[in-house]
């Protein structure tokens, strides 16, 4: 997994609530047996017409907005446990998703793929949407070590929460399997005790 420390980037606004994993990556794209290429189908049904041409009114097709940060309405990633949603977000090139609320499984899946979910207050989120609408060059800075997120246009900063273990994993680019494999003796002890 890639290390994550700080990131300053312009951002792409998606002010829709309850964006579910079927929107992030529709089920018909889940037939692959590897993790590659899902970024091309991120938000496929919002992004492409039936003939595969881009829908002009969808934000990912609007050249005004660019960046490695996706800012989305509350309850992002609800629905299915498909990690393909996290692979699609990561595969497109996003390193951070900012929202006022995330669904649990998506949050775990994102963290397991080096994508940082940042929870902000509804007011902070509303300001981000307003600021990027007036200035698409507006940027956000995310500092994982200090657990802060800054709207550089309005100069507002909020702190965000992250499990200390997951924070260490992201800062160092480690994953859970490495940890679990180091605990095999404990697992065998546990099994014997039952």
């Amino acid at each position, binding site marked *: 997994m890639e290390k994550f420390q700080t990131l300053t980037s312009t951002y792409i606004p998606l*002010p*829709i*609530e*309850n964006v*579910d994993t*079927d*929107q992030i990556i*529709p*089920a*018909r794209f*889940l*037939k*692959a*047996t*590897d*993790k590659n290429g899902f970024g091309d189908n991120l938000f496929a*049904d919002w992004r492409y017409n*039936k003939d595969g041409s881009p829908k002009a009114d969808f934000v990912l097709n609007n050249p005004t907005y660019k960046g490695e940060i996706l800012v989305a*309405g*509350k*309850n992002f990633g*609800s*629905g*299915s*446990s*498909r*990690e*393909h949603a*996290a692979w699609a977000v990561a595969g497109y090139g996003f390193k951070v998703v900012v929202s006022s*609320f*995330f*669904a*649990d*499984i998506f949050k*775990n*899946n994102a963290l*397991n*793929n080096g994508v940082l979910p940042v929870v902000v207050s*509804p007011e902070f989120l*509303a300001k981000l949407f307003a600021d990027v609408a007036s200035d698409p060059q507006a940027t956000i800075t995310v500092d994982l070590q200090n657990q802060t997120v800054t709207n550089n246009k309005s100069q507002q900063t909020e702190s965000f929460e992250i*499990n*200390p*273990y*997951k924070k260490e994993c992201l800062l160092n680019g480690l*994953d*859970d*399997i490495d*940890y*679990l*494999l180091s*605990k*095999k003796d*404990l*697992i065998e002890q*546990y*099994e014997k005790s039952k």
Partner: protein
Amino acid sequence: MSTDSQKPSAGKTLFDKIWDAHTVSTVENGPTQLYIDRHFCHEVTSPQAFAGLRARGLKVFRPERTTMTADHNTPTINQDQPVSDPISRNQLDTFDKNAKEFDMPFYYPLGNKKNGVVHIIGPENGFTHPGMTIVCGDSHTSTHGAFGAIAFGIGTSEVEMVLASQCILQTRAKTMRINFTGKLQDGVIAKDLALYMISQLTTGGATGYFVEYAGEAIRNMSMEERMTVCNLSIEMGARGGMIAPDEKTFEYVKGREFAPKGEEWDKQLAYWKTLKTDEDAVFDKEYTFDASQIPPMITYGTNPGMGMGITDSIPTLEAIDEAGRISFQKSLDYMGFQPGEKLEGKSIDYVFLGSCTNGRIEDFRVFANYVKGKKKADNVTAWLVPGSWMVEKQIREEGLYDILTEAGFALRQPGCSACLAMNDDKVPAGKYAVSTSNRNFEGRQGPGARTILAGPLVAAAAAITGKITNP
């Protein structure tokens, strides 16, 4: 996070008891290393996990604790023939190759008599027991919570963790109890209760929580009805849902192929009987609903929280808080509905009976009982998909097959089918489907498809009249 109960002075919840009994260790300031008793596995969310093992040169740590079935990406006709879509076929072949290469003893491919929807074959074969920890790369794993188990959906990285170590790192969820006092009215069933609850709590209302369902209406339910309720826990964001085991639970499990036998049964049963929330336990959140006030339910929007009584009207725009209005309007535009509109009597095109939510024998009994002696509406295409071959066999043995056939319905072969439309069972764009499945998301049942979630009774009524009908 401490592994000790965070409420040392109070008793323990059912969730706490099972969680603590499966805690192997706790990462300092981090998640719990939780031992997993049973892992269910299907073809869509596992190939990258097996590939990960291969890349690390690992074996499956405890192959006997994993049950594998192909269900999500499988056809529901002509299963004896090669799968026509080459990409789907490759996924099924990969699943097969993984099962064989890693010596997985409980593998039920297409065509096997134990094949079927993962959350249906688990309980019916006796793999699911009270007190277990159960995971699967599928968010509806919460179904197994009906037996008094901690059961929840995981991502593929976590599937790899379980295959590699039979453990998972997981942050302890907060606890919630939802009580249903009183009795459900006649003609109101478990699916209605669940859709009602989700409409009250919203699609993210239980995020971060593990839910225990309790109260008279839950106690009165059969095991299959309880599975329907627990199945839908994720649709309000919950990590999982569970119901304390009782005599109905033990009766259901007893004698099934992989249930404990003899002395082991007695030993397990004694333990299972201790699995209930202590009277002085405190939940982080608690709700109480009067079950007798719940009507037959349908959804009108594009998430399962957008539900209402079948005779009610869609909320007006003014009734929605301002931040949510864009999403609400977008949702109704997709569905082709207006704010304030009534849906009863509205014409529909498809009916889908099946899925891990409502693909069990009792669901087919409810449907068949309603359509007996009636005829399917000509304007309706109906897909009746048993959850497993065992359910299919029972449909035939009980004479339901003949009732359904006489009423103009055909039976398909088991699988997830139109619930997520990974196979050819796709509802065409713009068409309305009354579905007994679990999600009405945009495009869930096919690009542009419009899903109205309901229980098997409302689905049966719609199939007969061709309209949204109060059964």
